[in-house]
């Protein structure tokens, strides 16, 4: 009983500072918004069950994000199966940044990023959901979790080289989403559920 209590307290001590990041990671990744809490609940419960295997002093952050990542994959697979939607294969993106041409966008951004993003935040959130699962995970783990490439490779379970190419591709696609006008593409998974992230 005492051990259970200690285990729980130690676990929560590690977990609490990460709750915001874990939730943000799920919110930006899960296709069906109504499942965010379930995914978090399941991931945390599994991690707690395995907490005995976690070595104190090692990387708890990376350790628990792996559970969240696996939970997200599982939930999204279920969503696609229910919708009979295959995972779309994104067209290959050339390596060069093609933003250089759009000087007006860049100018607006440099002047006052917040003004542009008031209008583009929804597009960006939608664009993240359109990324390939690994690309999305890598982008969000970098942006939200502030993980190093090596940690991301461990969490996602891919080689370091894949992390780098995924990140490059994901960033490129986010930029393309910014320069695109809304509503051009349909058919890819969008978040459903409470509707807060669903485009009209």
């Amino acid at each position, binding site marked *: *009983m*005492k051990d*259970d*209590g*200690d285990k*729980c*307290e130690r*676990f*929560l*001590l590690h977990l*609490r*500072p990460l*709750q*915001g990041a874990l*939730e*943000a990671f799920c*919110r*930006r990744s899960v296709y069906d918004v109504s499942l*965010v*809490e379930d995914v*978090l*609940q399941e991931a*945390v*419960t599994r991690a*707690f069950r395995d907490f005995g295997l976690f070595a104190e002093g090692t990387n708890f952050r990376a350790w628990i994000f792996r559970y969240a990542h696996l939970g997200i994959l599982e939930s999204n697979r279920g969503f696609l199966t229910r919708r009979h939607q295959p995972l779309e294969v994104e067209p290959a993106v050339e*390596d060069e*940044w093609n*933003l*250089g041409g759009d000087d007006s966008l*860049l100018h607006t*951004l*440099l002047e006052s*990023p917040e003004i*542009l*993003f008031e209008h*583009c*935040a929804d597009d*960006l*959130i939608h664009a*993240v959901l359109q990324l390939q699962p690994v690309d999305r995970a890598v982008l*969000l783990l*970098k*942006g*939200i979790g502030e993980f*190093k*490439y090596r940690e991301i490779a461990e969490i996602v379970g891919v080689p370091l080289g894949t992390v*780098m190419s995924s*990140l*490059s591709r994901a*960033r490129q696609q*986010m*930029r393309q989403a*910014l320069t695109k006008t809304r509503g051009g593409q349909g058919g890819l998974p969008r978040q459903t559920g409470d509707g807060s992230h669903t485009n009209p």
Partner: protein
Amino acid sequence: MNCTQARQHWHLFHDSEGDAELHLQVNEHLEHCPECARWFQQQIVLEEAITHSLVSGMEPTAAIWSRIEQQLVPPQPARIKKWLLFGSAALTLLVASLLIAVSIENSSSPAPELAALSVAVHDKLTSGREEPNFVSSSHVDIEDYLKQHVSFPVRCPPREDAGFEARGGGTCRLANDSAAYVVGQVDGESVSLFILSRDSLSHFPELQAIPQRQRTRHQRHGAHDILLMEFDQNLVLAVGKVRAERLQRLLDAYGSYPHDHSVKSVRQRAS
């Protein structure tokens, strides 16, 4: 390294990945190539704006996490046992603190739990990952906000004359207790003040081991200093990467002002 090579390595450079030699070469190129320097700067602005728009406004949903935690937490007896353990720990601490000269520098530590939790919130607020609930430089307005948002009494936060420039305030949870916080700067360094109900003492059994005569206690957590004090109906923590004496000055100022809000803060009068 030419322009194409430099730009190809932008990700590694931006993410502080890759080896030192690469960073050296990129830096060298940027020093001599204003066009690439400008290009790199633009990439950073854009990338940070994108990340910000994905992350902003995302705070943990208290209801969700309390449900998740409830599924994990076993019934309470564990706490009581821990308490008993602390009985003997308290005695050891008392003896130890009698031996050590009465100085805030080396006194016994507050609960590591509370220290770690408050530092985590402090980091979130000062790294820009989260904005205070209420942004204001007026201690009067912050105090009013806090009084409306927590159930326990809150006294006047420190003012400019204590060397404190307020940036905002809000509420948060530290373990199962609600807390008010005030964030601001001291000597250009970010400092947070956390104010809890004095009743919260009983929820952190470790804290009950504080010898009564010693009101202030000091701990380091990573690069942060933490001072803790019981004051009137509050438990007050000051957290920051500043000298403990500066934090002590804030704690001394907390609640020490006469409650006359007709005198606005120095900054407000000046502008």
